[in-house]
């Protein structure tokens, strides 16, 4: 009797302890809850707090009838390229300042993955750091998805070296001679002179150690670099358009930048937005029309030879059926292109192209 009583007592204590644990968890929960509610309140206030943004918002409201002052509700899902992702997120933030009740989710699994989701009809928009491929468009068509292609911005690829390197300009032929498949084993810049000269390059690169840093094969930046810089020369030489295997690849742009800084006569490439603020020497590039340094202007005009367009694709039917989504895309092609692109460090489109994107959206099928 006594022992069962003790057991009972123990069991009661066990359950009460578990209950206490549950209460602690619940307390933590409600604690965070109140925090969040105050935050929600703050967020409501924030819509009016930063004056600059509110002014922007007001302007937006007056010249864009789609923004309807916070009464709009709904869900929007954006997926696609991780390169375009920050632009969409910034646009989402600006849009939510006006329409806090539209719930927008922006994901960035990559251009290819985004296309697959988009062509399954599961996303309103998808970002792409290249144009849609034929086979992807075929899947979209098969699934009866009509879409509009919209140019968002332009991303340049910067070719860099260390600040201590006297070289200031490289041609496509030089780059092929330094990083192309035939350069495997080259340890000095001058090793590439012969190939460069055969391709019509200057062939006057100095005899200095060559350490190469760049993105790995899985990256869209790698693909774009191969396609724009290497394909022409590789075809001329009867080679496959790939890079030499013996360079230091990294998925992390900071590692590439550090590598380039760490060696006096290094060579590397990353997205322009990443290189422009770093302590490296950005090389001018000769794509056949003389040396051009990448700047916002030369990248936007296409004068700088290594640049790629950034797109997003909009699912017409899904967006037309969803007032929140159509307001968001209307906002994207105006305020997004004019403000968000530059705010997250990309090169904004010239006004004429921005107008073209807006016209393409307004004139959708």
């Amino acid at each position, binding site marked *: 009797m006594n*022992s*069962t009583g003790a*057991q*009972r007592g123990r*069991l009661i*204590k*066990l359950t009460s*302890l578990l209950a206490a*644990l549950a209460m*602690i*968890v619940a307390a*933590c*929960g*409600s604690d*965070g*809850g*109140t*925090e*969040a*509610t*105050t*935050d*929600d309140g703050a*967020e409501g206030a*924030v819509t009016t707090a930063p004056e600059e943004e509110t002014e922007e918002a007001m302007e937006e409201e007056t010249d864009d009838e789609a923004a309807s002052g916070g009464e709009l509700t709904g*869900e929007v*899902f*954006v997926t696609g390229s*991780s390169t375009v*992702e*920050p*632009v*969409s*997120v*910034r646009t*989402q*933030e600006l849009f*939510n300042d006006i329409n*806090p009740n*539209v*719930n*927008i*989710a*922006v*994901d*960035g*699994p990559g251009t290819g993955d985004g296309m697959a989701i988009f062509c399954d009809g599961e996303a309103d928009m998808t970002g792409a750091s290249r144009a849609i491929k034929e086979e992807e468009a075929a899947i979209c068509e098969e699934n009866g998805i009509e879409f509009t292609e919209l140019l968002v911005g332009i991303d340049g690829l910067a070719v860099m070296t260390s600040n201590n390197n006297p070289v200031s300009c490289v041609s496509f032929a030089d780059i092929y001679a330094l990083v192309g498949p035939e350069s495997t084993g080259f340890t000095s810049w001058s090793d590439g002179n012969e190939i460069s000269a055969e391709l019509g390059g200057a062939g006057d690169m100095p005899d200095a150690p060559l350490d190469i840093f760049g993105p790995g094969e899985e990256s869209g930046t790698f693909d774009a670099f191969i396609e724009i810089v290497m394909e022409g020369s590789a075809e001329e030489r009867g080679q496959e358009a790939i890079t030499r295997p013996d360079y230091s690849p990294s998925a*992390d*742009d*900071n590692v590439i*930048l550090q590598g380039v800084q760490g060696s006096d006569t290094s060579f590397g490439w*990353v*997205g322009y*937005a*990443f290189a422009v*603020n770093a302590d490296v020497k950005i090389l001018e590039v000769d794509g056949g029309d003389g040396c051009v340094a990448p700047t916002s202007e030369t990248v936007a005009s296409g004068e700088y030879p290594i640049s790629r367009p950034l797109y997003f694709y909009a699912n017409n039917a899904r967006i037309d059926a969803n007032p929140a989504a159509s307001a968001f895309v209307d906002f994207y092609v105006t305020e997004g292109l004019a403000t*968000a692109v530059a*705010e*997250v*460090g990309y090169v904004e489109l010239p006004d004429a192209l921005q107008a073209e994107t807006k016209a393409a959206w307004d004139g959708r099928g």
Partner: protein
Amino acid sequence: MAIVTVGDVARKNAQTLQGAGRDVGGTIFRIAVAGTLYVSLLIIGVLIFDVLFDGWDQLSTRLGGFLSGTLRSRSIDDKLGVHQGLYGSFWIAAFVAIIAFPTGIAAAIYLEEYANQNRTTRFIELAIRNLSGVPSVVYGLLGLFLFVEKNTILGFIGLGWLVDLTGGPTPISAGLTLAILVLPIVIITSQEAIRAVPSGLKEGAYGVGATKSEMIRTQVLPYAAPGILTGTLLSMSRAIGEAAPLILIGAISGGLTANPSFVDVTALQDRFTALPILIVTWVSQRGRDEGFATAAAAAIVVLLVVVLLLNMTAILLRNRFEKKRG
């Protein structure tokens, strides 16, 4: 013939045992094992110091804002923070506690107390042990097919309603997937705790006329509780730290408007993110915007604090129960 007394032997042994310096091998061994301990402690210390140092700018100047903020496109944004990630991770932990713990403990009781020791049981135990070693990304795929994607084979075998229940890429799917992921670990640790219950206790219960279920309730579970709790709470820490399965399930990496409070259950049907995903995202954004390195480090500190709190709870509870069963 000298008579060797016990005293002689003891004296001799005492001579050889005297002097700490004489057992060279033993000393080296002791230093080596202690050294590995200190190296591990050093690594953990450096890690904690590093993330604290890197994340200090966020943690010291705007801790409240950081804990209540959201995913943002720019690191200087004063609404940047981890609250959405905390929401996702909190509910994942809740689902693990609600689903994996009772199921796992019940399975362990069955395997230890009821199941016959035959080939089938041994096969099941082997399978559970193997499952506990399967990479988490594989469970992510399982979760993707079970709870997120429509039009998989499940639709044909009549399980398509699972997706309607979870709502696709939601915290519910993530919680269920991670509950499945930690289930084998919960079963194994609970089994070991139950196995350690002295048979005298069980026989004593039978001796006073207890039925089997009474014996399990009154003897086995209370005695095994410390071990079971430690194992289950550690498995919860693991569930909270997983990123790979969540990426497959569709946790959001870019931006989310909704920033629900912890008790807002309606948001369980919406898109979500979680602490490990925030860390992955911000680490990858730091090339574009250096300030995200600070945000990522600060988020790591938050995750570490959550995990350490859970582990501390586990240790405190274990000590408490152990004292009781004394």
